[in-house]
């Protein structure tokens, strides 16, 4: 049994990093829990539960600041939750070792792609017909730029199946998979970085709920672990959110890139070493 006194501060740090990068904090908490001797499937189950708290806590502030796009979120949630159900079922059934390596490699490739891309404002140009029919556009007040940013999403037909895969990774690994979701929003659908980060945060909540239900029924959610992790991560996320709204898109992107690189290396190393 891992002590509350140890797990609580660790969870605060995890939640802080998660909110800053539009992720759920699971990326930090899962390796820590396994290092402390918790079975990987239990770690995944606790993590995905805590992801609901982080996501909902920070999404709350972003939505009230009018940065989150509710339509983009709702459309993409249809795909992520089905993915999460499938992903969690897979985790219950198999050893996820090779998937860790693939996941790490995909992240690494995305890191290179995102590193090269620079787009502060999002897209205002022509939309394809499907995305236009889906009414995926919007505007938000940017505090750092001091103006209202208008944008139009694109390529929803491509973003949707990719979000199914992102949901699957979330359910499979018990993380928000915010990194993957933000990438899809940024690179495929052309949303401004802040909109993609905050909308991803909202989507993560329902995606995690779908995954958590599977783990709950499987009896993998340990209430004794859940208490310090949920509390700590919520406190950390609250602090992280307060910081994000005041930062520029460039700063958010730089921080996100840094986290993404660590995440990619961590996944690959764990997959290769097989220390799941």
């Amino acid at each position, binding site marked *: 049994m891992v002590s509350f006194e140890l797990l609580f501060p660790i969870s605060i740090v995890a939640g802080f990093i998660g909110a800053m990068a539009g992720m759920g904090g699971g990326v930090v908490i899962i390796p820590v829990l396994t290092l402390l001797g918790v079975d990987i499937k239990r770690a995944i189950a606790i993590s995905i539960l805590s992801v*609901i708290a982080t996501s909902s806590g920070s999404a*709350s*502030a972003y939505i009230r600041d009018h940065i989150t796009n509710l339509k983009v979120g709702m459309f993409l949630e249809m795909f992520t939750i089905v993915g999460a159900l499938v992903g969690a079922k897979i985790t219950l059934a198999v050893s996820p070792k090779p998937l860790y390596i693939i996941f790490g490699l995909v992240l690494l490739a995305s890191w290179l792609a995102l590193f090269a891309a620079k787009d502060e404002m999002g897209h205002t140009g022509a939309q394809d017909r499907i995305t236009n029919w889906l009414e995926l556009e919007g505007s938000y007040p940017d505090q750092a730029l001091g103006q209202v940013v208008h944008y139009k999403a694109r390529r929803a037909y491509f973003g949707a199946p990719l979000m199914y895969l992102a949901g699957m990774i979330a359910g499979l690994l018990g993380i928000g998979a915010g990194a993957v979701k933000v990438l899809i929003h940024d690179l495929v659908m052309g949303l401004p970085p802040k909109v993609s980060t905050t909308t991803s945060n909202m989507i993560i909540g329902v995606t995690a709920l779908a995954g*958590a239900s599977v783990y709950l029924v499987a009896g993998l959610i340990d209430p004794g672990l*859940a208490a310090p992790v*949920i509390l700590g991560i919520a406190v950390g996320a609250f602090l992280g959110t307060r910081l994000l709204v005041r930062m520029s898109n460039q700063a958010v992107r730089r921080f996100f890139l840094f986290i993404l690189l660590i995440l990619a290396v961590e996944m690959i190393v764990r997959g290769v070493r097989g220390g799941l």
Partner: protein
Amino acid sequence: MIPDPESSAKKQIGSSAVELGETKQQFDMDALVGYILLIGVLISLALVIAALIWRWADTRTLAFDYRIAGMNLFQLLLNEIRLGMQGALRPRLLLSLGIAMLMLTPYIRVLASMVYFMVSLKNWKYSVFTAVVLLTLTYSLFLR
């Protein structure tokens, strides 16, 4: 043809008025969804904190050692309430309720969005999308 400056100015005003109306509706929904998420998480955290304080007062430890075995969310809730009514297991009941409240929070958010798209915006497209999300989530909460 030279455009009539007065009529184009009117159009301008007309369209910005529509935009304003939409922005205002969007504002209401943003606030509602935001507060649903905030209040849900706060209630859940309050329950977890209350469980921990109670546990500490009773046993001088913050550790909980019980398992939730093979139950979906509603079975868990029913089971804990039944145990709670029999007495003695109250800190544990609060913790389980905290976990349940956490899981219900995004669910309630989707439910509220559904009402908003259907009733307030009358947007059938997004009503259908939200219904799909809601049905899938409902299915996942009743898994066995």
